[in-house]
C-alpha cells in the first residue's frame, strides 16, 4: 500500500513538473538522479530467501533543488524488497516490494553566523556508516554492529538539526539535533523526543591525506524489543548510544583516479535502561584503489549484545542470520568501477557465531548504477 502511495505521489509530482515545464521552463525542475542496486547472492547455510537468489536490493530516486533564496530541498524515495520475515514468506517469494520516504528535508541557505539548519527527515548523524545511502556502503551489507545496535539501515528521523564550526586550528564541527524518535530502536508510541549530537574533528595531514576523529551520542525512548529481545515484559525506559570513529584518507594527487586508501574504524556502545548490560560493537574497513577502475575492500567487525544466558532472541524480526548473541564478521570484495555512474562488486563475507553454531558464508554479486544528474562527491 505504501508503495502504491509513493508511486502515485511520484507520478503526480512528475505530472506537475511536466505541466510546469510545458507552461514555463524546465530550468526550475529539480536535479533528479536515480540509483539502483541489483543483487545476486547465495549463503552457505541459511535458506532465508533474503540471502539466496537475485533481486533489486534497492532503487532510489532523489530530487534536489533550491526552493527559494532561503531553502534548499532534498527528497529521496527508496524501494526495496519486502523481507519475508516482516511481511510473510509467501509475499517475499513472489517478489513483493515496499517503498519509503528516506529523506525529505530543507537546509537553510541564508542562515547567518555560519550556522547550518536542517528541518525534516534525514539520516541521523551518528558515526560514519549510518548517514550512508545503501549504494554508498563499502560492503553489500551494513556492519553487524550498525545493523544490530542502530537499526537495519533505517535510522532516519524527522526533526531539526543545527550545526556550527568550532574555532579550533583544525576543522571542527559540532552538530546537535532533536527528532521525533520513530526509528525501530526507539519506542514509536512514546511522546518523548530523541536527541543527540556529533562532534567532528578533521586534520589535514598533507594535501593528499586527512585524519578524522569524531564522536557521536544519541538518546531516546527505548524500543520495547530493542536488540530483538523477547522479554516477558516489553522493555521500557531510555536508550543512550555512544560512538567514536576514526577515518584516514589518502588520495594520490598525481593523476586522475590514481591510487587511494581509505581506512575507517568505529566503536558503538549502546546503553539501554533495560534488557542487557553493556553491549558493544565495532567495525573496521579498508578500501584501496589499486588501479583506475578497481577497488579492493577488506573489512572486519564484531558485536556482543551482552545478554543474560536465558534471554530469548526474536529470530523472526531480522532473520536467523543476524540473530546472534555475539558474532564476528570478515569481508572481502573486489569492485570494478568503469565510470562514476556504475560499479560491479564481487564479495565474500564470513560470519562467525561466537555463542552458537549459526556460522555462515555469504557470496554476493552486486551491480550499482546511477542515471540522471551528476552526483557531487562528499568527502
Amino acid at each position, binding site marked *: 500500500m505504501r508503495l502504491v502511495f509513493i508511486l502515485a505521489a511520484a507520478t503526480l509530482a512528475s505530472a506537475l513538473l511536466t505541466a510546469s515545464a510545458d507552461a514555463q521552463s524546465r530550468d526550475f525542475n529539480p536535479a533528479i538522479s536515480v540509483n539502483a542496486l541489483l543483487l545476486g547472492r547465495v549463503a552457505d547455510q541459511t535458506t532465508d530467501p533474503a540471502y539466496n537468489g537475485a533481486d533489486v536490493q534497492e532503487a532510489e530516486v532523489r530530487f534536489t533543488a533550491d526552493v527559494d533564496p532561503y531553502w534548499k530541498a532534498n527528497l529521496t524515495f527508496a524501494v526495496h524488497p519486502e523481507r519475508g520475515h516482516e511481511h510473510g514468506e509467501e509475499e517475499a517469494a513472489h517478489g513483493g516490494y515496499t517503498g519509503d520516504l528516506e529523506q525529505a528535508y530543507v537546509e537553510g541557505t541564508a542562515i547567518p553566523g555560519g550556522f*547550518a539548519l536542517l528541518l525534516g527527515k534525514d539520516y541521523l548523524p551518528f558515526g560514519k556508516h549510518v548517514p550512508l545511502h545503501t549504494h554508498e556502503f563499502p560492503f553489500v551489507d551494513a556492519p553487524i554492529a550498525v545493523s544490530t545496535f542502530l537499526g537495519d539501515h533505517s535510522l532516519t528521523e524527522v526533526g531539526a538539526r543545527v550545526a556550527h564550526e568550532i574555532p579550533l586550528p583544525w576543522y571542527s564541527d559540532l552538530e546537535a539535533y532533536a527528532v521525533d524518535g520513530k526509528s525501530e530502536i526507539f519506542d514509536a508510541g512514546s511522546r518523548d523526543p530523541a536527541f543527540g549530537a556529533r562532534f567532528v574533528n578533521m586534520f589535514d595531514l598533507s594535501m593528499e591525506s586527512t585524519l578524522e576523529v569524531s564522536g557521536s551520542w544519541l538518546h531516546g525512548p527505548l524500543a520495547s524489543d530493542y536488540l530483538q529481545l523477547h522479554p516477558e515484559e516489553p522493555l521500557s525506559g531510555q536508550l543512550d548510544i555512544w560512538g567514536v570513529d576514526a577515518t584516514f584518507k589518502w588520495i594520490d594527487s598525481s593523476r586522475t583516479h590514481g591510487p587511494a586508501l581509505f581506512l575507517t574504524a568505529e566503536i558503538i556502545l549502546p546503553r539501554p535502561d533495560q534488557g542487557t548490560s553493556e553491549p558493544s560493537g565495532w567495525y573496521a574497513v579498508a578500501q584501496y584503489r589499486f588501479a583506475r577502475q578497481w577497488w579492493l575492500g577488506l573489512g572486519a567487525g564484531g558485536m556482543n549484545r551482552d545478554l543474560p544466558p536465558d534471554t530469548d532472541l526474536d529470530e523472526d524480526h531480522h532473520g536467523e542470520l543476524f540473530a546472534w548473541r555475539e558474532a564476528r564478521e570478515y569481508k572481502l570484495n573486489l569492485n570494478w568501477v568503469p565510470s*562514476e555512474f556504475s560499479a560491479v562488486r564481487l564479495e565474500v563475507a564470513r560470519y562467525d557465531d561466537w555463542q552458537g553454531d549459526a556460522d555462515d558464508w555469504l557470496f554476493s554479486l552486486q551491480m550499482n548504477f546511477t542515471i540522471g544528474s551528476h552526483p557531487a562527491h562528499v568527502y
Partner: protein
Amino acid sequence: MKHLLLALAFLASTAAAGPLKVVCTVTDLGWLAAEVGGDDVEIIVLCPGEYDPHFLPAKPSLARKLGKADLLCYNGLELEVGWLPVLIDKARNTKVRDGQSGHLDCAHALEHILEVPEGEISRAQGDVHPHGNPHYLLDPRNGILVAHLMAERMAELRPELADGFRDRADALEADLLPRIAAWEGAAASPRAHPLVHYTKQWEYLEAWLGLACLGAVEHRPGISPSPRHVDELVTQAKYAGVTQLIAAPWNHLDIGQKAADRMGASLVILPAAVDSQDGADSYPAMFDLILTRLTTAEED
C-alpha cells in the same frame, strides 16, 4: 552613546576597507584574480595546480576557507560540479551562494563556448559537460575577458576600489595582447602536423592557435579507452603523420606513452593549469611553456 556608535561605525568602515577575501577554484583564476585585485585582495585557491580540477576531494578544510570568502570565483560549465556544490553547502557562507554578488561564474565572461552539445546527449558519450567545454582558460583571450569580469565584480563589492580593479584589468590586457601575438607566431611549426590528445581538454588552445587535432586517446571523457579505439587512432595517426600526443600531467601517462610509441609520436606533457608543472608559475608562463614544448617537440 554617541561616541560608542561613532566607534562602531569606524570599526565597521575599517573592516569593510580590509582586503577582499577572494576564493578561486583553480589556479588560473587565482592568478588572474591576484593580478586584478592587487594588494586589495587576499587570494585562496581551492584546487592546487597539480590536481585534476574535475576530481578535487571536497575536504572540509576547503569549505572552511570558502566560509571566510567575500567572493567565490569559479570556472563554471560544470568543471567543478563534482565538488564545489558540496563545499558551498558546507561553507555556510551566505555571501558566496548562488544569486549573491559574492558568487561569480567566470564562464559568464565568454563570448563563445566550444562544444555546446546540440541535440540529445547521454552518459553513453562519457562524462560530457552538458553546457559546453569548460577548459576555456587555455585560450588567453578568455583570460582577459575573465579578468575584466572579475574587476567589475570586485568593483561592485568594493566600490571605493573600483578604479584600481579596472585599471589593473586593463593593464593585464595590455600586457597579454603582445604576448598573445607572439604565442600565435610561435605556433607556426606545431601547425604543420595534426595532434592527438590524451583526453579532451585542449580544444580552446587549438582553436586559438589554429592547431589540428586528429582525436583523443580517451575519446569519451572519464571512460578508459578501449583497445579497439586506440588501434584505430594509432592507424589514423600514422597515416596523418602525427608527431605529438599531448597530455595533462594528471592523465594516465603510461597509457599515453604506449599510444604515442605506437604512433611514432612524442608524448608531450603540457601544463594544463598554472602551477601544474615547474615553470608554469603564472598564466603567461604557462603559455610560454606550452608553446616551448609544442615547438620543441615538433622540431625534434
